[in-house]
Structure formats: structure tokens, C-alpha cells
């Protein structure tokens, strides 16, 4: 089992196998640190 990290503002735990990727708009997508993105932060 992998380590779990707290998610900002939620108290939830996410494992380090949870990866968020976003469009860098320069032709490729790249990883973003998961705890920096809440479910609704994009909205």
C-alpha cells in the first residue's frame, strides 16, 4: 500500500498513485501535484 497524503481543505486521504495532469498548452500535458487541486478548483 502506498503512502497517503492529506487533501487540502477536505481531510480526505489520497494515495501517491493518484496523479493529476493538466494541459500545459505548449503541446503536451504535465503532472500537477494532486493536493493543489480540489474537486472544484477548476470551476
Amino acid at each position, binding site marked *: *500500500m*502506498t503512502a497517503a497524503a492529506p487533501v487540502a481543505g477536505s481531510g*480526505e*486521504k*489520497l*494515495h501517491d*498513485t*493518484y*496523479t*493529476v*495532469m*493538466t*494541459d500545459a*498548452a505548449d*503541446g*503536451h*500535458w504535465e503532472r*500537477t501535484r*494532486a493536493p493543489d*487541486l480540489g*474537486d*472544484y478548483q*477548476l*470551476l
Partner: protein
Amino acid sequence: MPLDPELRAMLERTAAAAPVPMHELPVDVARSGYKAGALASLGPDYQPVALARVSDRVVAGSVPVRIYQPEAGGPGVAGPRPIVAFAHGGGWVIGDLDTHDDTCRFLSQALSAVVVAVDYRRAPEHPYPAAIDDYWAAVQWTAQNAATLGADPGALALVGDSAGGHLAAAAALRARAAGGPAIAVQAMAYPVTDATMSTATDPHASYVTRSDGFGLSATSMAWFINCYLPQAADRALPDNAPLLVEDLSGLPPAVVATAEYDPLHDEGARYARRLGQAGVPVTWLAGGGLVHGFMRQHRESRAAARARQAFAGAISAVLAAQPAPEPAS
């Protein structure tokens, strides 16, 4: 982030060409309009991706499929290929093999994979569980026949977009419950994960904030659900609301892609998050500035094209991380 300007222009063209909402049309008219729109979005100079072979057949007794065989070689292919059981979108109602032919050709080429696209029975003529039963039967057939198709049974991917993403998620749950077949990756683009539409009760949720004006509307989504799931009691079943399944542990690694301007954004993002909380390896592709359907908007938006490529890249990365198959003795 702002709506991608190329997608904004696409939405304006679409609204002008098809001013009547889908849910106000007879089903056959909605289907023909959806197909015409899918083909028109590819443009007059569209040339399908050339593959070694594309053939239609019936499998598992009664399920029509279209099988895409990639050209020999391809990126990173040294042995048996991955194999994809693909479920098309279209709200379980209006999509078909032709509306997603380009998507399947793309996936076959990008993943160097055999793709088995499933022509499951559609609602409202065939309500739940027809679609998931057909897809599940085809998934089992695909696993059993992967080697015959020149593919690696250990590299089986369940892939779908929108309602097809919902079927992929549901089939992964069925495989877990049944103890097989082994699924290497489940990959869902802007999926339905909760047919109860429970997120719609949150005034800040995408079902409310993105309810209309970005292609798929919340009203059309409710119509699709009514067509496929006329019995309200069925909507909370694991087949239809994976998001509400209490224990998601032990599911296959997942790729979940969402679009920011989509009523389904939040249930896709929440499903990715819940899978991650359960210890399932997850790649969430957070599609800022995109709208529902970006897998089929690559000819109209460079951002959509990048997202489609990223979706395939994330699936490839999961497949590449799988343990190598035992050599044949």
C-alpha cells in the same frame, strides 16, 4: 480557465445548425442528427486512419462488434499487442459504431492495440441492463479471444467515452465481483458515474453551473437517463452509479478524463478522487477549458486534440507499467 476559443466557435456553429435540443427530438431524428454532426465535425477532407484490417462480426452469441487491427510494428510494440474493449458514448441512446469509428481508429493506432468496439443495444428500445449486459459479454469474449486476435490477454483495457465510460466503469466493477477477467486498465473520458444525478443537488456542482450552453446539457442528460433507466430504483445500482459504490478498492488502475465545461465534470472528478482514496492507481486528466465530447472534437480544437492524445498517452503509460507476461514454455 476560460473556455477554449476554438471550442466556443464550435459550440456557436453547432447551436446555429441544430437549434432544437436533442431531448425534444424523436429518437430516430436525434440519432441521425448526432451521426451527421459526428461526421461533419471531421471535415470534408477527413481521411480515416489507415489500419491493417477493420471487420464487423457478431460475438458472444448476439453482440455485434467492429474489430480494428493496427498495422504491424508501431510504437513500442515488440510482442502481443494490448487489446481494448471500447464502449461508445451517446447517452446509451444515440451513438453507434460509425459515430465513434474515428475514435477507435485513433486508439488502435495510438496504443498499437486491437480495438473491439461494441455495438451494444440502445435505449429506449432496450433499457437497462441491455447495454451493460452486451458490453460485459463482449468484454468477456475479448478476454477469451485476445490471443487469437494477436493481442495480450494480460493487457486488456476497458475504454469508453461518456455513457461508454460509464459502461467501462461498470464492467470493471462486474469483473471485480466475478473474479475476472483481469483488467489492466479502465479508462473513461468524461464519464457518467452516477445515474442518480446526486451531484445535481449541490448548487456549486457542474450539473448546475454547467447545466446548459456547452453542448451536452443537464436536461439532455436527464432524458438519456430516463431512456436507459426508466425504473428509478435501478439508478443507484453499482452498474449505474459506480460513484456511490462504498468500496472501490481492488479495481484496476484507472484513467479518468474530465472536461471543465461539462455537466458531468464533477461526477467524473469525484469518481477519480474516490478511486484514488481507495488506493486504486489513478490518472485524472483535468481538461481545463474543454467541453463534453473532446475525444471527437480534435479536428475543431487544438486543445481537444491535445487532450485526446493525453488520454491515449495515459492509457499507454498504465499498460507499460504492467508486469511482463510470463514467456511461453
